[in-house]
């Protein structure tokens, strides 16, 4: 079939966008769960949960779409990552299940509420850690032969992936805290202001470790960044600028800026990561063109997406609009 466009590139863009959407949106609500054990009172926890209750479900649908979309556009990624991260994927799903039912049951529970608190916190932390470890595993690369994963069950679990796992936990916690600043007031907001700078510090430390470490994990990354001066350097610079904005806006007690700047920090770090690995989709052996599905399948799905995704985005925006504003005592009424 004639191929007027390189659909693989378009799909790479769509998937990259979808992953970013998922990370930012589910990130702040996973963050609530991570911060849950540290909240001083049950009232804090009520507000935290209420601040994300109307939207978390839609957020997780993006994960399902990510899974199915990968299978459709880059089946190799789906067929290598999932076997390689087998145990991690199970932990991720189990974490999400517990978190999901905790959302449902905590509000109905009275005496057993503490159990659902733990289910929510534990599920969120495990799920976030597992996602961070996936990022680390991606940077490390996978043992593949003839388009199949051939490594062991726990190859992905290395000191490096533990660090990236913890890094994402800290990052989501920061997103969660700055989201809370925006959505709450009074003592809950004060508390969020207090913890946010510490989380920022934790995030920066982990980012520094990862940045130093990554080039040693993967020589190709090393040469990309250091062989000749590249435009890529603008990304870490922008990320650092975002970190500075977070810090100063927290000091000035601004409400919206810290959250927006944290999203910027995530975005530029993410782009930096993509830039390091480009065009490898299943490192170290396969590029995105190796991983792609058939042209006609890509086309078949793209036509539908072009039509449906704008509607989905419009609906999502509408939900956020409906639930805009601060969480008042006791939630949205």
């Amino acid at each position, binding site marked *: 079939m004639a191929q007027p466009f390189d659909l693989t590139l378009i799909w790479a863009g769509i998937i990259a966008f979808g992953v970013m959407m998922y990370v930012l949106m589910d990130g702040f609500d996973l963050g609530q769960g991570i911060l849950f054990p540290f909240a001083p009172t049950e009232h804090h926890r009520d507000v935290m949960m209420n601040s994300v209750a109307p939207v978390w479900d839609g957020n997780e649908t993006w994960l399902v779409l990510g899974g199915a979309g990968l*299978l459709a556009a880059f089946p190799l990624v789906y067929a290598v990552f*999932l076997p390689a991260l087998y*145990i991690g994927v199970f932990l991720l799903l189990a974490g999400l299940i517990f978190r999901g039912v905790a959302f449902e049951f905590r*509000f109905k529970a009275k005496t057993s509420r503490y159990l659902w608190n733990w289910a929510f916190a534990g599920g969120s932390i495990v799920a976030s850690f597992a996602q961070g470890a996936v990022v680390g595993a991606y940077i490390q690369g996978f043992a593949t032969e003839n388009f199949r994963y051939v490594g062991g*069950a726990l190859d992905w679990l290395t000191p490096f992936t533990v660090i990236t796992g913890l890094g994402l936990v800290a990052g989501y916690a920061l997103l969660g805290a700055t989201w809370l600043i925006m959505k709450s007031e009074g003592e809950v907001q004060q508390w969020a202001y207090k913890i946010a700078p510490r989380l920022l510090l934790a995030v920066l430390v982990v980012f520094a470790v990862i940045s130093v470490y990554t080039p040693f994990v993967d020589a190709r990354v090393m040469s990309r960044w250091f062989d000749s001066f590249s435009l890529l350097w603008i990304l870490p610079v922008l990320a650092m600028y975002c970190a500075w904005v977070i810090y100063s806006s927290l000091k000035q007690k601004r409400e919206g800026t810290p959250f927006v700047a944290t999203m910027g920090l995530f975005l530029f770090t993410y782009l930096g990561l993509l830039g390091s690995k480009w065009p490898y989709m299943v490192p170290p052996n396969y590029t995105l063109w190796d991983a792609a599905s058939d042209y*006609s399948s890509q086309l078949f799905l793209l036509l539908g997406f072009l039509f449906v995704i704008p*509607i989905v985005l419009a609906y999502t925006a509408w939900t956020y609009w409906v639930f805009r504003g601060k969480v008042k005592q006791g939630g949205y009424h």
Partner: protein
Amino acid sequence: MELDPLLLSRIQFAFVVCFHAIFPVFTIGLASFIAVLETLSFKTGNPLWQQLSKFWIQVFAVVFGMGVVSGIVMSFQFGTNWSNFAYATANFLGPVLSYEVVTAFFLEAAFLGVLLFGRDKVPQGVHLFAAIMVATGTFISSFWILSANSLMQTPAGLELRDGMYYVASWSEALFTASFGYRFLHMALASFLTAALVVAGVSAWFVLQKREFDANRKALSIALWMLLLLAPLQAVVGDFHGLNTLKHQPMKVAAMEGNWETREGVPLLLFAIPDKEQQQNHFELGIPKLASFILTHDWNGTVPGLKEVPVEEQPPVFIVFWSFRVMVGLGLLMIAVGVWGLVLRPGGRYYRSVAFLQTLRLMSISPFLAVLAGWVVTETGRAPWLIYGQMTHAQGLTPSLTGGMALFTLIGYVVVYSLVFSSGVYYLLKVFRGGLEKANAPHEMDEVERPMRPFSAAHASLEGDK
């Protein structure tokens, strides 16, 4: 002992998919029932319809929530345990599953909020529209997923090149030979599930004389549905079987417990098929009936299992008995439907205690029939994952070890048991609360918040408050 990753993966897949299947089959039917109630309420303005709808929406919310949580697991199963299969079929399976997400899941998510919480916030017409859209969403979802499944049963429209399938014709691949029958049979199964659960729960309320008028109406609707749909299901099932005979003869041979290809095959009512000895023990059957049903000729030839080598025969015992469970329950449903009709004159159907108690018992029958049906379909396909083309063993993830598979199998069993018991416990509370609680004016206390499936239900998890 060496752990077999193939066997463990099959057990795991069967477990998670059966667990998942329980919920959609109910939500699909219930969504349509709610849409009907909302339509009646909109058209007649009779408050009874709304009372009923409020109650059943609460039930729907809980079941739907469980369906979502278990469904998320399903979409990753293909990659974790069956990566060779997923990779080989990705050109077809990927777009189909993605379309399911964007056309069905997002649609359901969008209108669910309005259905659950919007009654007082949007005009009644919009609320009705939301109910219809949620019901539509569940059918769109079935369309895509059953199309994927039917392709594995009766593959068509694909081309195999270098170990990858390429879609040669989307229309042939989406609408394969078994798809129409499967979709109809499944849709009827969902309606029957809703009808029997509604009948059982309403019968229980009627026995307790609670909200008598509304529940009697619900009971009456459910019984008409049962009377109409149960026989229809048997007819559709029969056609489904004839189609299977054409495309998957070994599956039918296993369903009939027939070893030799021969004429005038009896319909076995009882037998213990023994794959090792390639014969049945303790056969009891009606002479020539199987030939007649399958070929419409008393002396028609029916294929036997021995036509293929032992390794290519499905597990006969499981298929044989699951099929009898499904058909047996189907016949029972027809009988109960007819009994309801006999009791209809003079309204004895809501006074006969024996009948009402039977209905209560029958409310789990559709779930058993559905699971038995899927076991027939899926186990009967063995050893093929894609019938005649790819076996289970070929589809398995190559790097998977027995230890890994055992770990996640135990993990899912534990997680699901916890989730399921909480869910069922809560559902029973919603039932106990009944229409009264669902319609009680309640001030939203601090534990309520909108936009979540479960918060549409007002029972609390413990205690009776």
